[in-house]
């Protein structure tokens, strides 16, 4: 069966101006229990690659520059 992808608004937002992933930081990607964050090969910044979030907060709490914000996923907001 062919696959389609559908749109989803993701709860974790990264401020590219503050994110230092392009300097080698991987803290948020490392700590995420669901392993949903990745570093973009286009921007060098962290982003939420998979909408599988427990809105638990380690990414936001452990980010050394305060670049990460966890929002409540839309479906349960």
């Amino acid at each position, binding site marked *: *069966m062919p696959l389609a992808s559908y749109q989803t608004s993701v709860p974790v937002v990264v401020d590219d101006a503050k994110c230092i992933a392009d300097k080698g930081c991987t803290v948020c990607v*490392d*700590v995420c*229990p669901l*392993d949903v964050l990745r570093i973009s090969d286009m921007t060098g910044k962290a982003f939420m690659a998979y909408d599988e979030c427990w809105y638990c*907060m380690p990414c936001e709490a452990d980010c050394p520059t305060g670049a990460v914000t966890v929002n409540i*996923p839309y479906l349960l907001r």
Partner: protein
Amino acid sequence: MAMDEIVDGLSEVSCDVLVIGGGTAGPMAALKAKLKNPKANVVLLEKANVKRSGAISMGMDGLNNAVIPGYATPEQYTKEITIANDGIVDQKAVYKYAQNCYKIIEELDSFGIRFLKNENGDYAVKKVHHIGTYVLPMPNGETVKKAIYRQLRRARILISNRHMATRLLTSSNGRVAGTISVNTRTAEILVIKAKAVILCMGAAGRLGLPTSGYMFGTYENAANSGDGYAMAYHAGAALANLECFQINPLIKDYNGPACAYVAGPFGAFTANNEGSRFIECDYWSGQMMLEFYNELSSGKGPVFLQLSHLHEKTIEEIESTLHKVERPTRGLFQKGRGTDYRTESIEMHISEIGFCSGHSASGVFVDDFARTTVPGLYAAGDMASVPHNYMLGAFTNGSVAGTDAMEFADNHDFAAFDAADVVKERDRVMAPTRREDGIPPNQIEYKVRRLVNDYLQPPKVTRKFELGQRRLAEAREDMEKQMIARNSHELLRALETQSILDCADMAAHASLYREESRWGLYHLRTDFPEKDNENWFCHTLLSNKNGKMTSEKRDVEPYVVPIADEEKDLYDKQRIRASA
């Protein structure tokens, strides 16, 4: 190479004691194993990252089951847990926990975790349970994971993050020989030979589907997909009382605790739409959940956690806990909804079903040394059968498991396993990556969990369960023949889907076997509405016998702490009486 790209690879390592799962029980088990024999190799394997994995990823507000001299005795605690579980308890393990947990509290204190004390310097223990007093707040509870992690580093435990164990290896005579795992970022296979293995893999928390429809908006940490239950089952271990589901009263939609254990001791209470109390006690038990369910279905709902009557200072104190530890986004959620605790009550709802001995009583069957029925295999924490564990139970029983497993490893050599088992498992694991076309894991997972809600949620109806089993078998056929994973992250989800489906099958099978009602809402069977002590005052053990899922009865061990007849049904009296 891009992250998540699938790499073909297989390597093999060995260790003395392997601990699988780095949440709460696992780190303590690894630490105690290493302390028991500092020369031995201890490996801690974790699907996520030990720094922030498991149920207490963001810490915990307190201990819910602290047996502290001067406030409670091990005998009282053992009695209360026995009564709360309708008597189906092997007391030895509970009693041992109750005796040991104070030492663990002192040890956690030495790690830098603080516990609330009153002006006299005594522990400020609060009453939440029906009978005894066991709840102890932790003022710096957000630091728990960090404190434990420091101890692991200091003890030089070998930590392997982002490796998901998929199956245990066993010898021809049934002893544990190690595990097969897969790197969740590269899909490379790692075989780990071990003399003893401790499973600390958490709850089956991604079993039911939350009513919000968001697959990862579960009560439990959504990484807890029941992998430990599935692995134990496939290795031939027995699993106890899986029909005793976990169902919790939670903040509607947010799906985290409200939390009556924090706010209750300050005067908050559970109320119906009329603002009246309807349950005697907010401690989570099946009997309490049944009254909660009855209130919601009687038309007297919604049900609320009422705290607007409390003093401003008290509400501030409650907020400072609820919005800081365990599920800190509770504050963000309430803000988004415009819910201010000062003026409005918190709307509550019933969670999806799961397996978890943290608050319930099911799990991989263990004795008072955390030994499963497979020699050399141990289990602790939310996935092991010691009832109402909570966080302190995970630490304490993890400690027991670590010590005993190292003793086992010191006295045994590696067990031999069949190399063909590795080949077979590798083929099973990689199968979704080798298909060109098919159904992605998220769709199969969604369908399985939707079926769990439709057919397995209490009240349990025999006919519905039978239909549910048929639908689940169809989903299994799809999963085994058509599931595809296009990268290693999808492979992780595909493997989790297999654990979820195994747990759904076990939940259905175990529930149909016990032909009575017990544990309030957890096992409410409409076709057998009464508790039947004559035929069912026993554990049920589910296991894989020659490839067939089988259940059998097992006697409850003679009590260590006797329960008087007039005490046995104390937890059945949860509803507030209308008259004196």
